[in-house]
Each structure stands twice: as C-alpha cells, then as structure tokens.
C-alpha cells in the first residue's frame, strides 16, 4: 500500500464513523416517528386509555426525544442495546438470531462467489452468442423478482407439491440450524437466485469490457491460448470489481433475508424485525435498523477501499 492509499483509507474510515453517527440519529428519530403509538399498539384493543398512559410512562416515552436519543446512543457505545417493550434485554433477543441469519447469508455468499464468477465470466466470453442471450435474459428476469416471491414459489413447489424438502425451517429448541442442513436449503436457494442474477450480470459486463482491452487483442494475435488469456489478463481485470460486487451483495442480502425468513419461519432476525415493527417495539427496531445500516455502510466503505487499493473506481 502506498502512502496515498493509506491516507485515503483513513479518510474513508473517518467518514464512515461520521456517517455511523448520522445514521444513529436518523434511525432513532425515524423509528420514533413511525406512525402509531407503541403503548396502544402493544396493549391492543383490550386496554383502557389509563393503562396505555401507564405503559407510556413505563416505556419512558413521555421523556423528550433528544434525551431518549442521548441515553440510547451512549448505551450503544457501551454495548447496551436497551430493553424491549416486554422487558427483555434487546441484546438477548437478538444474539442467537443474528448468528442464525449470519449462517444463512454466509452460506449464500460462499456459494455466490464461485457461481457468479463462473457464470458471469462464461457469459461475458460468449457475449452476443445464443448462450449469452438466453442466460442474460434469464438473469434479467430473476433480478426483477423479489426474494419472497421466489421463496414462496419454492415453498409451494419443492416443499409443498414435491415434498422433497421441509416447507418450514423448523429447528428444534436449543439446536443449531447447521445441525439440520435440510432447513437451510430452500432459504439459501431463494437468496442465492436473486443475488446470483445481480452479481453475474455485473461480472459479465466487466468481462465484456475487459475482453475489449488492446492488450488482450495483442495476446490473441500472438497466439496465446484462451485459458492463459483468461488467467493472466481477464480474471485479474475482473476480480477487483467482482469483490466489490460481492461485498455489496452480501450487505444487500441482510434485507432480502428478512422476507425469506418470514416465508420459511427461519429463526433469524427477520421475524423479530417484522413482529417488533408491528407491535411498536421501538428499541428492538432501532437496534436492528442500526445494525443493518451499519453493515451496509461498512460494506460500501470496504468496497471503496478495495477500489482505492487496486487503483479502480467503484463500479457498482
């Protein structure tokens, strides 16, 4: 690394820290401004206005927003995520589930990397041909479909009609999803199909661009075998962009997984996010939004740093 890239990297990290601070404010205030009243939302139709007032007081909702934000953000710095509306520590609610979601996204990324590289490069090398035409059209179609539609389709067909795999990702209490690999297949497949379509299209475009470079033309004219050209010129040109694409895809998966987890009842953060938004459990929503936002931010910064280190601009 040169001094210039080091300076660039530290600048980026400082910017990321500043953005995280801003993100925390946006997340806290934004979630607080969600329509509805967390007290009546929690107590439901069976509560009286008096009971709702008591609940508001107990949840600290009667204090000014600035004060609540300050308490929250200082707690966050100490690693204290606060307590959910029903009194459980938010960290306890999320801990096991974040791990389960990480398993899902981790496996997806591990499959995404080789699959998208192979698919993207082979389509790119055949650009304009019949294989590329059919492949690219299929990818475009898949990109346009939301993850939960694919997930519902897989649940209905592969699990419901064919009965090959479980329709619900039920993991016995106290056990880990990795101990029951069959419950991971359909959720991973749903996530993979969409992210694969996106990543392969981007890598295909990079390959096509790389193949147009004059030095590759020169290698070909000199009679170098295609495999060698691929290894020595095409892959080195494509990989830096591909890494950025994978990083962005991985961050994006966090959002897609929420919906996929709901469809399969996978015990990740998806269920918590949806149920806590529905019940107005603000501390949980704030912690999750902060976590997901921070992850996306860090992935983007990492992609930028890789671009700087390899002397390329970000291509996504």
């Amino acid at each position: 690394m040169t001094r210039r890239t080091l300076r660039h990297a530290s600048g980026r990290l400082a910017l990321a820290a500043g953005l995280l601070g801003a993100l925390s404010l946006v997340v806290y205030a934004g979630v607080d401004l969600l329509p509805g009243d967390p007290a009546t939302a929690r107590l439901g139709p069976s509560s009286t206005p008096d009971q709702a007032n008591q609940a508001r007081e107990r949840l600290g909702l009667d204090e000014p927003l600035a004060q609540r934000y300050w308490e929250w953000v200082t707690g966050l710095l100490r690693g204290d995520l606060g307590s959910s509306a029903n009194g459980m520590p938010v960290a306890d609610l999320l801990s096991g589930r974040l791990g389960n979601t990480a398993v899902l996204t981790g496996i997806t990324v591990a499959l995404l990397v080789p699959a998208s590289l192979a698919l993207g490069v082979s389509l790119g090398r055949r650009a304009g041909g019949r294989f590329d035409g059919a492949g690219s059209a299929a990818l475009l179609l898949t990109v346009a479909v939301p993850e939960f539609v694919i997930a519902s389709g897989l649940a209905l067909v592969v699990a419901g009609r064919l009965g090959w795999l479980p329709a619900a990702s039920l993991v016995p209490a106290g056990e880990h999803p990795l101990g029951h690999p069959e419950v991971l297949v359909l959720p991973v497949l749903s996530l993979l199909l969409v992210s694969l379509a996106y990543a392969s299209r981007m890598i295909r475009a990079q390959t096509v661009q790389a193949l147009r470079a004059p030095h590759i033309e020169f290698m070909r004219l000199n009679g170098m075998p295609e495999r060698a050209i691929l290894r020595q010129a095409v892959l080195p040109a494509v990989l830096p962009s591909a890494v950025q694409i994978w990083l962005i895809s991985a961050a994006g998966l966090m959002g897609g997984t929420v919906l996929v987890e709901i469809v399969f009842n996978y015990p990740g953060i998806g269920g918590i996010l949806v149920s806590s938004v529905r019940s107005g459990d603000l501390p949980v929503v704030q912690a999750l939004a902060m976590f997901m936002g921070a992850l996306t931010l860090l992935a983007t910064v990492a992609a930028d740093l890789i671009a700087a280190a390899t002397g390329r601009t970000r291509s996504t």
Partner: protein
Amino acid sequence: MSRRTSSADSRLVQATGPVTRRGILALLGLGAATLASPALSGCSSNGGGTPVASGVPTGAATRGGTLRLAFPGSGAADSLDPTVGQTSCDLVRYAIVFDQLFSFDNGTAQPSLATAAEPDAKGKNCTLTLRKGVTWHDGSPFTAADVVHTLKHRAAPDRVFPSELSQYFNLVAARRVDDHTVVIPTVKTVGDPATLLAGSGLYVIKNGARSFTVDDTVGTGPYRVTRFQAGVETQLERHATYWNGAGNAEKITLLSIEDPQARVNAVRGGQADYASDVSYSTAKSGAGGAGLQIRTGGEGLRTTYGFVLNVTRGPSADPRVRKAIRLGIDREALVKSVFLGFGAVANDLFGAGAQHFLDTVPVPEHNPGQAKELLKAAGADGKPFVVRTAEYEAGLNASAELFVEQLRGLGLKATLIKVGVTEGFDAEGMKACDALAFPLGPFSLALTYTRSAAYPTLALPDEELNRAVATAISTRSETERAAAWETAQQVMADRGNWVAWGRGDVLSVAKEKLTGIDGRESPKYPWLGKAGFVA
C-alpha cells in the same frame, strides 16, 4: 344462552363434490392467492366447492404420542412469563402449564384452582375457596400462599400489562386465611367474581416465582415445560399427577410460526399436526393433503366483525343515522366477500357466545330505501363520514372497504382511512373518525361492555345502558344479573353505536386423527390438556 361447541362436536368443513375450477387452483397451489380476491370468489362459490360440515373423530384419544401444533407467536418476544405474552402461542402454552382460578367453558366460568368465589353481603371482600389435592410440577402442594403471591405479583407496577382486575379488586391487599382460603378486598362491588377472574388471564404461579426460565417455570397444569426457545418452539411433557386427570399425549411441541401460510405449509409438509388461525382463502382452497381437514372453532366461538360508531362527533351522534346505517348495509354481501362463506350475519351485538348473550335480537332487515329516508330526515345526506380500519383480524380492512362503498350508496360521503395495526387505537386518530372497524372474540359480556366503555370514542353515553352494566357487574343475584344484561343489550340493539354485521369462523387445518382441541375461551388459543390422536 347460545350453545358452544367444543372439541367433541366441533365442525369439520371440507370441499366436496366434483372437480371444480377452485379445486384445480388449489391443486396448482394457486388457490390462496387467486381466491383472496373477493371479485373472483363471488362468482364461483356456489359450485361444488361450497363448505360442507361434518364431524371430527368422535373416538377418545389414545394414550401416548407427541403432538406438534403450530400457533402464531411473536418471534423472539415469546415468553414463559404468564404476565408478559399475548400471542396465541403464548396463551396456549400458559393454559396447559398453569391453571387459572376459574376458566371459561361453554361461555360460563367453571371452577379450576378455585372451587368458589363468594362476595360478602357488604360488597367489601371476596372469599376464594381453593381446590385441595393439587400439586405443582415439582411435587409440592398448591396452597393459599401461591394465590396471594400470584395476585400481588400481577398487581406490581412493573408488570408489562396492567391487569383489568385492579379495577375491581385490591389485589395487593389479598390475604391468606388458611391453607385453602384467600380473601381479596374489593374496590367496587362485584356480584360475580368468578366470571371476572375467568376472563382476566390470571395464571396462578408458585409462591416466590419471579423469573420464568425453563428451569424455574413451575405450574400446576397438565403439561410441564422441558425446553423452550422464543419464536421457535416449546417442548412439553405430561404432568402425570394433574388434578383434573393426566393428559393423553405424552409430549406436546408448540411451534411458534407467525406467518399464516408458513403454518399451513408446515402441516401440509408433515412437520406439524395442526395449524391454528388459517385464512379464509386458504380454507376455501381446501386442506391441501390426504388425511388433513379444515376445521372451524364452532358456532359459539366465532369472532364478531363490526364497526363502532363514534357518537362524540358528526352524523353518528344522531340515533337516526345509526339506525340508517344498520338498515342500509348489505350484511350478506359482507359475509360472502370477507368470510368467503365461513360465517354468518350478526344482529349488531358484540359478545356472541358469552353467557347472557341476547341472540333473540333479530338481524336488521336490509332496507336501503328506509335507510336513505332516515339519513335525509337527519340531514346527514351527502355529509362526510370517515371510516377507520387496521388489520387486527384477517379481512377487517376488506370489510371496511366494502362498508364504505355501501355507505356511499346510501348517500353518505364516506371515506376510508387505513392504518397499520400499531396506529389502530391511536387516541387522536380515533377522535377524528366516525366509525372504527372492530373485531371481538367470544369474551364475557362484562369484558365486552367495560372495554368498549373505556374509550370515549367507542362508548355510548346512555344512562340506561350504564345503569344496567353497573347492576350486571355488581349484583349478587343471578336473575337480576340476567335481567340487567338483557336491558343493556336491548339498549344497544335499539339505539346503540355498534354495527356488528357478521361473525366469522376461526379456522384451522388439522390431521384427521387429531382430537381434543378444546376451544374454551377462544379457538385461537384452545386448551390442549386432553388433546391426542384417536386410534
């Protein structure tokens, strides 16, 4: 009193007859999505796919086996603490791990851990007589000290949900008289404490119990917790010395599955034996597998769907407008498009299925002509009318859309405000509407009438009504109470602010051989103490 149906004769509904378009859609797995559209279902629901009722297995459940039952939970917020959870999955678990002092059966309060609750003549105290010979899961005997602790714990200010019982009883002042007698001072005169106690979700915990992990969750109920993971599942084992006869199934696993389609998929895929709270459109498309049934919770345990008119503002303040709306709406159309046939029209009263419910009040006849005249006479013709709805129950928003259409047809300038469930009971929002979509399960009349009166925008300020409700709650005479409830309901039928247009079935999908799913308080969270498989 209306008859409730419990597990033994609860209804089975299934699509029969020759192959229909609906049957084919169900086969393709498209049923749910396609049939959700009221327009489509309206035109073909009278063919071979009309719901037909028959019976569930009538044989007794055999001993042994493991039941796996799926209920909607709240993800990681599921809790073993019986003062915290509110979802079906939580309530089902509490009901078999713990016992209440009284519990509902056939709409009336039945003795459970208490055998009697007697108010004294002056209305100052209530004496509870407790059941003898009951043991906790850890083998220790159940005594008055446990009940005193439960009442004090329930009333503590740091409980997540305040208890309605505090309106009637001074819970913290409860005291033990002897091992099987407890006295609770009352805040106001209570004539029928058993019904109030049965409807309050008061699960009795052991003396000293404060935290509820798998190891220290000890109840007196028919099953004890062996494993628990919030939002995933609870594993339970039979409590062999349960006072009311040990359960049939050896083990029960309660699956917490929030998404309705995922619950149904779990049963269809053989991962579960039962899924509760199935949508009407899914039910219409059939059980979806050999050996599976769509079941209803029974007629006495339907959910009443309606609208509460806000009499504090606008047109609804005029009784003529309230009457016009009742006469003008097309209940049959609402039932058809919202319940898809799994329900019936209602007589504008909430509380169907409860003791003293007045089902002799006829359903108002559909008379748009008279309705329009009444609106004109009240000067409400062409006036704005705001309807507010949130999807507290499946189909509530759809019902509000149709309701608004129908009101427009009567000449009101009706508009719809659709909000998320977190906003539904926002006080400011409620003040700004003329009608609020409102569903209510089969709760006791005391709950039905006191809860709606707590919100000014839901209440009917009527002296005769208030007097009758107060009498019904405070009198110790059963005949006087019955008469008071009749008066209160007659007032609501005559000039009330409820437009309760229909009652919808609570549906589930179950394996044919599964039996003993007992609706009790609500079919959404049945009692599973005697559930099992028939041979």
